[in-house]
């Protein structure tokens, strides 16, 4: 088996099939990045998986998962003004959390340089919106590089780091989901480790670092001067690429993954436009664009999500009085979704049909397939929790969801969660819903990693302002959705064992009087606890805890003598009430056409949490599986 950790530290040049999220780690090592921070969020957490593959003592940098994206940005900033090249990475909406700090970075003299890696998510593959973080770059005068594939991720990170070090600024490397997760063979350069200078080089004379009143203006001027200097350097350092097909009529300006989609469409259609593919997408190389616009009759700006470059290009054409027809966004749909080859072909079909690939033929004999929404895993403690909590609430009660695996409780048959906003928002929203409301009880959910990330201010507010709500903390002992990262209550950080900060201790420390704590597999007890909690006049918290069974089972399977188990149905006793399969709805249960129920051996983990849900007691206790001993 190839050892990823050793590979990433290899001294000699090498080529390997890796995803973008792995390629970036080699780039960080070669660039001499010293401090890397993050909060887990798709599409970026596999960057940390690649880091984890390197033994802690061998890592030529420090890495941590911080409590949230804002703290992660602050840690990376602190390191950068101490002279260390640093990097923070997180998902698209993570920048909203980090923004209070992030928007100030450009004002500061980051002596070590800093790269901010953003995992934007066109297509909303695993996010609550499609926000285009290029807007943040404009607002904060921060340059952006945008790679299209893992090879470019590797090269563009190094280019971003070099620029950040040269000008002592933050530089964004904007990745999108299918650039993070694309896999290809990347050719990596040799690496010679440099001697690490640990000297804390923070010096107030490198500043000012105090953006207060009149001090702000020189800092802002410096940021703007940097930006204009970068614009003038862009043609040289911006990693732009031009495809010259001698087409003076039709040309396309594009960048990132949509460029590759475009190339695939053109492979099929045989279309030959001139193409300008931008590497640094903010600030723009004005002279290069001006020349490109002048040398074509029509230019299409092929731009995923919002129309920032289209606006800039039109401005250049207007100011320089260039006679060129500029095509861009046409309708709402051109602002929505990922620019896959199918999407790009659709855009070209409307504009220049001869350049569009053929649309796929429709099926001669379609067969409708039932939808498959995401589900909680077999044995998931959240399923037991939702099943039990539902018995304690009236249908009209208001249920506020939050971010995490437990968000999935909003779906049938549980319907526990009627609105979702962002990390940690549920408690505040619930408080608002409770005002003037004496007929519908308000319950909100919160995960344990989210509790530490952004949950605590809402909880303190509920207490401080005496809101009449019930908070249910869905404690599974990990950051499950993003791949089981540790958090402050697990007793481990990314690098070491650490003192646990139990959720309950924090709540008690705040002086919350009504705290109920129940293992979710004890469903009746949980139902009773929630009934009691919602009857409290004021703020009550229920800690509904059970370890993440996906994580636990993976750990168990690795142990010697592990014995796989599963439940079974007592067919004589089963009277087809279908609570297990339709109400508790563990994916393990199979509903047969004759109404009988079976257990799917592919899925059952033998946890037995279902036994208590059967009104006829027809589920047999978990038994050892035959021949499945590992």
């Amino acid at each position, binding site marked *: 088996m190839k050892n990823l950790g050793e590979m990433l530290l290899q001294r000699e040049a090498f080529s390997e099939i890796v995803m973008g999220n792995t390629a970036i780690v080699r780039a960080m090592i070669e660039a001499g990045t010293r401090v890397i921070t993050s909060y887990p969020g798709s599409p970026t957490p596999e960057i940390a998986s690649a880091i984890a593959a390197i033994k802690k003592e061998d890592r030529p940098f420090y890495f941590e998962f911080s409590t949230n994206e804002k703290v992660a940005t602050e840690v990376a900033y602190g390191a950068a003004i101490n002279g260390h090249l640093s990097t923070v990475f997180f998902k698209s909406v993570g920048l909203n959390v980090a923004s209070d700090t992030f928007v100030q970075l450009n004002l500061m003299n980051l002596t070590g340089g800093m790269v901010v890696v953003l995992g934007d998510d066109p297509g909303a593959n695993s996010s609550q919106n499609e926000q285009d973080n290029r807007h943040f770059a404009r607002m904060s005068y921060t340059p952006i590089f945008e790679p299209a594939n893992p090879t470019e991720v590797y090269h563009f990170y190094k280019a971003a780091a070099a620029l950040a070090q040269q000008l002592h600024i933050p530089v964004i490397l904007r990745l999108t989901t299918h650039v993070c997760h694309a896999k290809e063979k990347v050719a990596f350069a040799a690496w010679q480790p440099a001697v690490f200078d640990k000297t804390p080089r923070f010096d107030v004379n490198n500043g000012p670092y105090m953006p207060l009143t009149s001090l702000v203006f020189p800092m802002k001027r410096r940021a703007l001067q940097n930006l204009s200097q970068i614009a003038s350097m862009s043609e040289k350092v911006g990693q732009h690429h031009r495809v010259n097909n001698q087409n003076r009529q039709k040309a396309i300006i594009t960048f990132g993954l949509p460029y590759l989609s475009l190339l695939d469409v053109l492979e099929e259609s045989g279309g030959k436009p001139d193409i300008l593919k931008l590497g640094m997408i903010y600030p723009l190389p004005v002279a290069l664009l001006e020349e490109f616009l002048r040398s074509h009759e029509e230019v299409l700006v092929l731009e995923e999500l919002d129309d920032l470059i289209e606006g800039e290009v039109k401005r250049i054409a207007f100011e320089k009085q260039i006679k060129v027809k500029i095509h861009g966004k046409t309708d709402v749909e051109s602002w929505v979704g990922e620019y896959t080859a199918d999407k790009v072909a659709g855009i070209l079909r409307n504009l220049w049909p001869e350049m569009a690939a053929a649309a796929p033929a429709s099926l001669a*004999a379609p*067969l409708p*397939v039932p939808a498959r929404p995401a589900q909680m*895993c077999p044995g998931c403690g959240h399923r037991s929790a939702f099943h039990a909590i539902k018995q304690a609430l009236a249908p009209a009660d208001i249920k506020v969801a939050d971010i995490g695996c437990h968000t999935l409780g909003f779906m049938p048959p549980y319907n526990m969660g009627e609105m979702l906003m962002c990390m940690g928002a549920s408690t505040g929203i619930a408080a608002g819903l409770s005002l003037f409301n004496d007929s519908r009880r308000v319950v909100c959910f919160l995960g344990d990693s989210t509790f530490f990330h952004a949950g605590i201010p809402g909880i303190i507010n509920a207490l401080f302002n005496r809101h009449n709500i019930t908070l249910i903390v869905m404690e599974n002992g990990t950051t499950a959705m993003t791949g089981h990262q540790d958090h402050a209550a697990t007793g481990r950080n990314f690098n070491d064992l650490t003192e646990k900060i139990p959720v309950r201790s924090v709540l008690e420390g705040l002086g919350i009087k009504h705290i109920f704590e129940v293992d979710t597999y004890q469903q009746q007890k949980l139902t009773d606890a929630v009934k009691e909690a919602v009857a409290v006049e004021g703020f009550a918290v229920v800690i509904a805890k059970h370890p993440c069974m996906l994580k636990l089972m993976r750990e168990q399977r690795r142990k010697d003598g592990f014995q796989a188990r599963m439940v079974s149905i007592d067919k004589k006793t089963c009277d087809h009430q279908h609570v297990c399969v339709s109400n508790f*709805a563990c994916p393990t249960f199979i509903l047969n056409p004759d109404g009988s129920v079976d257990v799917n051996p*592919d899925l059952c983990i033998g946890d037995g949490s279902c036994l208590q849900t059967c009104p006829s007691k027809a589920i047999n206790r978990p038994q050892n599986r035959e021949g499945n001993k590992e």
Partner: protein
Amino acid sequence: MTVFNVYLSGVGGQGIGLISEVMQRSVDHAGIKALGVDTHGLAQRGGIVASQLRIGDNIHSPMVSRGKADLVVALERHEAVRAAGEYLKKNGTLVYYNTSWQPLPVRMKKAEEIKTAQVAEFCQGNGFRLIEVFQSDLPDPRMQNMALLAAICKNNLLAGVRKEHYIAAMRDLMSGKMLEANLGLFERLLLV
């Protein structure tokens, strides 16, 4: 060589990431360019997971267009039909492992489960070649992906990729007991 597109689909937890990476590396061991991409994140929790693999010289994005896959590999019956319906081109091949993980609407009596015979009819009606895989004696259900891989190798579904390339790819990605068990199964199924 011409472009060859593979779309892989299954349910979160079935091991699609491993089979897609073995396939991509097998193609690479055979000296052919390959690009791939997997689903990560939210959808992994019991939802649909897809991997995409593109093979050939003139390929750019790792993503396969609708109706343009030459091969659909599915780890589950419903996902076989869904993926083939959306991605497979006429005369393309569907190879799937015949297990059913009932989607929620089936378990809630809001939809009918798709039966094995319907998959065959569906393929016939749309001009798809069908290869159904099922192995009753797997030591572990998590090895269904390897049974599929053996079928892909045995039926020579990736042109130019031979047994030794698949094995080299498996050796890149697995070690110890896991490698032993998977390699043992793979080689045994090639002999059947």
